[in-house]
């Protein structure tokens, strides 16, 4: 399983992670607060621009967006039922209002814009770099560690699961609706938890053996280049433009 897709060497991938994290946060905040369609259209264009600049695979983006939109779909279906206003659609006693649909549409648009920007700006960096950038931007060290280890251990759980599943397959296990299957699944879940705990303990041991004392370092020192400055300026400009449209 891949959460973070590290470098493909594109323009975005080369931007300083600190700049990217800061830009992503500011962008998300201003998009959250925008109500005007113009502002959101500009923001959408910017997000799509990031996708192009980052040379990201459309397939993987669609995969991620899909999960979000299943959730959004529920909101789009339910919200217009509860917001009073001019009826737009009526099906057997249920009324979806025009205002409600408008509101739900805005939410869907905003969510997708923010998601796109996050995929382009954050998911394209090494987890360690994300942690480092967050720390540089003033997030407490403990929190960044929790985040980094979580990322690491989701992967580990996944690996252990695959190993167990392969072991089952090798011995011709076919799930069915019977006691044997339920018992086997019970074993798998139990073993998965125990093994992951053990594995985590051993990784901690290995880290201690190599002098870990509560601090993670990154190998590649960040350098603030002219390209970073240009990107930061562009991002700041965009955020200011969007706020101005909103406040006008």
């Amino acid at each position, binding site marked *: 399983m891949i959460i973070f897709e590290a470098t493909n060497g594109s323009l975005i991938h080369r931007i300083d992670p600190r700049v990217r994290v800061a830009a992503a946060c500011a962008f998300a905040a201003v998009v959250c607060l925008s109500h005007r369609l113009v502002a959101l259209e500009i923001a959408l264009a910017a997000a799509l621009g990031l996708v192009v600049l980052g040379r990201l695979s459309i397939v993987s983006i669609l995969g991620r967006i899909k999960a979000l939109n299943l959730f959004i779909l529920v909101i789009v279906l339910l919200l217009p039922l509860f917001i009073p206003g001019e009826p737009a659609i009526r099906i057997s006693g249920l009324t979806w209002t025009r205002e409600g649909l408008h509101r739900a549409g805005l939410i869907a648009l905003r969510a997708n814009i923010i998601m796109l920007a996050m995929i382009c700006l954050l998911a394209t960096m090494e987890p360690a770099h994300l942690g480092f950038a967050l720390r540089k931007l003033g997030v407490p060290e403990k929190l960044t560690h929790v985040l980094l280890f979580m990322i690491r251990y989701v992967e580990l759980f996944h690996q252990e699961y695959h190993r167990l599943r392969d072991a089952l397959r090798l011995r011709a296990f076919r799930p069915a609706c019977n006691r044997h299957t339920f018992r086997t699944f019970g074993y798998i879940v139990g073993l998965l938890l125990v093994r992951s705990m053990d594995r985590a303990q051993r990784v901690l041991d*290995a*880290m201690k053996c190599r002098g870990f004392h509560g601090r993670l370092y990154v*190998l590649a020192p960040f350098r603030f280049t002219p390209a970073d400055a240009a990107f930061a300026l562009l991002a700041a400009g965009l955020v200011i433009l969007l706020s101005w449209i909103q406040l006008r």
Partner: protein
Amino acid sequence: MNEPLIQLRGVQFSYSPEAPVLDGVDLSLRPWERIGLIGPIGCGKTTLLHLVVGLLAPTAGTVWAFGKTRTGESDFREVRLRAGLVFQYADDQLFCPTVIEDVAFGPLNLGKTADEARSIAHETLQLVGMGGFEERITYRLSGGQKRLVSLATVLAMHPDVLLLDEPTSALDAESKTRVGDILRRLNLAMIIVSHEHDFVRDLTTRIVNMNGGRLIEES
């Protein structure tokens, strides 16, 4: 000047009260000494190495290392910086995404700058014959490659003592010879656990046999 670097005195240990694993172990490692530790599977060799670096605590007896008796976690922190343990399973040792990051992890913890750490990591990988693997993803290496990288992660810390838990498992004849040559050339004090008797006999200055929770010197 021939004071031991590490000394275990009457160390006892058990994971559960019914089945003691170590039952009064005495062992001294002197400078430049290379001890081969052999014994049947499950007799407690790995356990002994973990006791030396304080990942486990003895139920009786003492661990003495680098000039004093070591008890708490903060005591052992210093021991771990000077006694490098290579785990039996390389999978447990490697946890960074890329090879170079993993090898540089130790030097960075020792306070080296990123550039220094990077160049130490390069040199060490070259030394174990894994030059060119710097940017590879650690969990996508083969078993033997993981072994060599995990050896490099420990060597990169320039320890005074090496504790090797089956350093040759998963290696082919050529890599085995290479690892043997590296270890001989390093000229460090070390304890080598191995089931390959020829390999240890060839490499070490003395051999101790573990059986029934005790150590027996082999003449």
